[in-house]
């Protein structure tokens, strides 16, 4: 049963990806990409990665769709017709074939003997309850064991926000009040 769900979700992803590549109306592309994120979130849920699914649904399907739509307002929503080119198609096919070839070497999904489950994961699972004491191990790994990583991620988001403010921050000024100073 779970294989059927996996298969149909992956099929959905493939169909959506091809649709995005073939569409020329950018407005439709943005909406279909949002749907792609939503299907990804469903896949993450099936893989028991609920925290990741949460983020994907909120950021991928929600915020980034809105930001892309806001950007489309400033440009045209119709893609210029491109002539068919062989080299990009070959590059995509070769890269895809290499990626599929690389997965043949990977351990099976959920294999307890996989290297990723042999390193620090057993310690997190066994000692998190006693050392950190929060029931959600994902939270204890993210915020406590890997606190440095999360600090780095937050700094990246901070830097992104500062970058947006520096480049197009003047859009934050109030337009109707006529004064431009404190914003």
């Amino acid at each position, binding site marked *: 049963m779970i294989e059927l769900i996996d298969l149909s979700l992956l099929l959905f992803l493939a169909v959506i990806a091809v649709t995005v590549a073939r569409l020329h109306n950018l407005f439709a592309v943005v909406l279909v990409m949002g749907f792609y994120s939503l299907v990804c979130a469903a896949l993450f849920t099936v893989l028991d990665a*609920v925290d990741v699914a949460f983020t994907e649904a909120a950021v991928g399907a929600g*915020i980034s769709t809105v*930001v892309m739509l806001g950007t489309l307002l400033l440009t045209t929503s119709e893609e210029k017709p491109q002539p068919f080119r062989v080299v990009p198609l070959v590059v995509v096919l070769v890269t895809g074939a290499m990626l599929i070839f690389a997965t043949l070497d990977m351990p099976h999904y959920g294999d307890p003997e996989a290297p990723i489950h042999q390193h620090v994961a057993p310690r997190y699972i066994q000692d998190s309850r006693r*050392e*950190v*004491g929060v029931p*959600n191990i994902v939270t204890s790994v993210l915020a406590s064991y890997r606190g440095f990583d999360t600090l780095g991620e937050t700094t990246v988001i*901070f830097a992104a926000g500062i970058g947006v403010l520096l480049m197009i921050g003047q859009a934050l000024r109030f*337009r109707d009040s006529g004064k431009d100073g404190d914003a």
Partner: protein
Amino acid sequence: MSHHIILRVITKLFIPFILLFALYVQFHGDFGPGGGFQAGVIFAAAFVLYGLVFGVEAAKRIAHPSLLQWAVAVGLLLYAGTGAAGILLGGNFLDYGVLDSHDPVHGQHLGILLVELGVGMTVASVMITTFLCFAGRQPSP
């Protein structure tokens, strides 16, 4: 969108629940899925919805830009400050165990709460700022 009355009424009904759900995800992240990042994005989504329906200028009056710019920095400072507090209390950077002198597990709880709050503040304010900046631009003539 001043004439879409159904959209406006439903939006007004939805926004408190979105904000409440964001706070639930923020403070319940220790027990269920979620945490500062997800909560920040959901919190921002409420403001984005408000901005989409009632206009960017109205959203700016609620999420004041100067307040947003402070929140972007204060969130990260709260995170780094929690880490620095660990050093001041005799531990390592980001070692929450020393935050409570009696029980290291309580210190861990407090540290995670503060750190997630910092992440949530920064993420929410960066997302709202990004939306307001992108949506507030006018097409160049």
